[in-house]
């Protein structure tokens, strides 16, 4: 039995920053990582663009991970174990008992608090009801990325990509660099959900055809993929089958969305928020279960790793303070309200404890040219952020000074 004040499950960007957060308030923690190294998915993201906010530099994924690994590796408050796969988290009288499998046997960890930073997984062909045959050659974009960047393998000769989220765009460029022909990127929505810089640097610069309002209707080929059928979609996003055409290719990458990997918490009976495909948390990143924290992509899918790190760090400081008995209790918890321009906020709840600040992340429901994001409490404006342009793909954040809160908190987007 191992005892630690805070157990962090997942040693990717969220978990590394969480550990730093825990240690910064003087508590100790243990990271359990399922892979054979820390850093999580960052290790396979060899492109640059990480860390602009955090370190004011453009780093590759592994470099960004190593900045954090360097930060925590010398900290005596932080331990990490690799190749440990958590199979169960149980609530105990004064904390949690977590079981993990490893080659050294079953590991049992007792802790005051648990932070889940397990990230997310990719939607596969089934979850988008992709019909046709079931040949080899269909990968989620991240799986192909792992084969190429970590294993040094080639996934195919001629590829199509469904979905123009960031991973899809980055993998389009990556495939071309690896000598795979990219016949096109197909996006069901009228606009790419990826970051503007990725559309420029990965697609336009490499002359990859990006077909908007178009989707893959089915795949063909009995053994290996032989091609895909694509069709434009109508305003209800339904394919127009009369216009369906065949595109020969031996590889299809799916970049069709990410889902928080939080199933291990299903038995805790926590409040579910459909907009994030995860559980609700308060501004400390604590769930309905006292001492159980969520941060990063397991809470809601982020577009920038810098956000994941800052959430992780914040969750870490909260969990550390909780474990030390320093997190104030008893203050009223209210739901953060918002208008129809905002899809969701994470956290969903905030305490009226009038202490410190809270970081509220959210996404707007569509792209807007020019807006002012405002926060109100008790009818008074407590925060505002003018934005030249906001897109549905890009996460927004707002810092709230909790001492200014009167009754609740309400977020509004004023469209100019």
């Amino acid at each position, binding site marked *: 039995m191992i005892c630690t004040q805070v157990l962090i499950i997942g040693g990717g960007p969220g978990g590394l920053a969480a550990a730093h957060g825990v240690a910064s308030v003087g508590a100790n923690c243990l990271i359990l990582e*399922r892979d054979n190294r820390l850093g999580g998915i960052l290790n396979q993201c060899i492109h640059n663009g990480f860390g602009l906010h955090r370190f004011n530099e453009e780093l590759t994924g592994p470099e960004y991970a190593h900045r954090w690994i360097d930060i925590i590796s010398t900290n005596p408050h932080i331990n990490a174990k690799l190749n440990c796969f958590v199979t169960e988290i149980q609530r105990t009288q004064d904390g949690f008992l977590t079981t993990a499998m490893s080659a050294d046997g079953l590991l049992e960890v007792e802790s005051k608090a648990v932070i889940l930073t397990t990230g997310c997984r990719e939607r596969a062909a089934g979850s988008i*009801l992709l019909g046709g045959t079931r040949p080899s050659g269909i990968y989620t974009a991240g*799986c192909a990325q*792992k084969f190429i960047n970590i294993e040094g*393998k080639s996934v195919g000769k001629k590829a199509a990509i469904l979905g123009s989220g960031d991973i899809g765009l980055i993998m389009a460029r990556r495939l071309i660099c690896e000598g795979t022909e990219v016949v096109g990127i197909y996006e069901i929505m009228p606009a790419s959900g990826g970051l503007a810089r990725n559309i420029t640097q990965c697609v336009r610069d490499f002359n990859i055809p990006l077909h908007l309002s178009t989707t893959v209707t089915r795949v063909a080929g009995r053994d290996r993929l032989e091609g895909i059928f694509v069709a434009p979609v109508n305003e209800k996003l339904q*394919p127009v089958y009369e216009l369906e055409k065949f595109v020969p290719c031996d590889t299809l990458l799916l970049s069709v969305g990410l889902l928080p990997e939080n199933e291990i918490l299903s038995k805790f009976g926590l409040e579910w928020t459909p907009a994030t495909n995860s559980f609700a948390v308060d501004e400390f990143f604590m769930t309905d279960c006292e001492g159980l924290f969520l941060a990063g992509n397991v809470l809601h899918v982020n577009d920038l790793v810098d956000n994941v790190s800052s959430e992780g760090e914040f969750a870490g400081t909260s969990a550390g303070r909780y474990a030390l008995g320093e997190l104030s209790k008893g203050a009223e918890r209210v739901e953060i309200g918002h208008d129809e321009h905002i899809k969701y906020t994470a956290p969903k709840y905030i305490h009226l404890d009038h202490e410190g600040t809270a970081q509220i992340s959210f996404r707007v429901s569509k792209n807007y040219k020019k807006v002012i994001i405002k926060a109100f409490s008790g009818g008074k404006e407590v925060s505002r952020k003018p934005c030249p342009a906001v897109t549905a793909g890009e996460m927004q954040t707002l810092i709230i000074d909790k001492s200014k809160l009167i009754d609740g908190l309400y977020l509004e987007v004023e469209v100019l």
Partner: protein
Amino acid sequence: MEKYGVAIIGAGIVGASLFSELARKGVKVVMLEKSADVSDGSTKANSGIVHAGYDPIPGTLKAKFNIRGSQIYPSMCQRLGVGICQCGTLVVANESGREALEQLLHRGIENGVSGLRIIEREELHEMEPNLADNIDIALFAPTGAVISPYLVCIALAEEGVVNGGVAKLNFEVNRIEKVNDSYILGNGTEQVEADFVINCAGVNANTINAMVGAPTFDTHYVKGEYLLLDKSQNGFVNRPIFPLPTKAGKGILATPTLHGNIMLGPTAIPCEPNDTTVDAEGIAIIKEKIKLSVKEPNYKKVIKLFAGVRVVSGDDFVIDKLPNSHFYYTVGICSPGLTAAPAIAEYLCEKLVADGMEVSVHKFVPRTPYVTTNDLSKKQLKELIKKDASFGKIVCRCEKITEGEVVEALNSPLHPTTVDGIKRRMRPTMGRCQGGFCLPKLIKIMSRELDVPEEEITLHGNKSEILAKDKD
């Protein structure tokens, strides 16, 4: 050339049942399968239900073998060390279907099904809280059960092998020649000789019959498409829920799988023999028809689409032999074929004995069930990891499958070599990420254990390599 008493063509549930039956009787038997693994045709893609037997018309082979098969299954699964969930099945209807349900009940009683009863609304909705609101009554068949069809088929084939049978995979019979009193079966490069030949080739039965001048049958093919839901939906239904059967079949059902997923389907669409595509139309039919029985399933939790093809020949199974020969054939083994298969095997074995097949005294060797870490207690798991550390290394995170289990599957009696072969035995890539995370790890282990380059590992044999060969 190796000489056998019996050659079975096809390693689906019928072929594998007979293979095990004969091997356990000490018959020198070979099973020839064209695919890279057993259970690669209709057997792998169906509802996985042991039917109680109220549906077939009394007096038919379907009725006879269904009833006997459903009696065999529980003890057979125990003998094989594979799971069976004896949850019973329900045929649900609204009040206007009462008469039809009662007819089914009487047909079932006539067929010899035990325990059948009509369940009224209150009890029914308590048993199955997610039934559609307008469902008033149901026929409950307590002897109905849920199995994993491919796992049963694999286990039967393994049982045949450990009892002395020979299973030849990637052996597509393309020629059968009668020489003196025996048959020579060839695939173009290899030949085997046998006294008896049993055609269990499923959708390809007519092709095989034609090779020896046996009659070919008027057959048609019906595609059944399915949606598979994530394990988080476990409990949506607690047992198979059928609508009232129609001429077209048993209808679109909602059922738990043996491993705790929820499955919706099948459609029943006329198709070409090997058309296992899933169409948008089929998905729409499932979504529409399922409403008749149950509340709206959570389609966001679909993890896989698949389809299987059933071969249908008239209204009944065809199980017969070419007169004055040792060539037997099974044609049109559609539903309830999975249930009926062990009974068909029993029947064929009797026929073969009567026809002069040689049997010998044989000491039964039980199949060794796979070690599945999910089924072990913490204490057992600790001991296992201590003995072999690879049972502590998780490969598939969704289904929690360890490296030890993957290696165990690779070394199992049929020595599967494909990703799908490992998936059907141990479930890696079967979960909610569908291999997104574990495929690279899995291929690496397979490459190491099989001693072939990763680029040669296939999804399901033939040209289904997962990685591209030459990297420029």
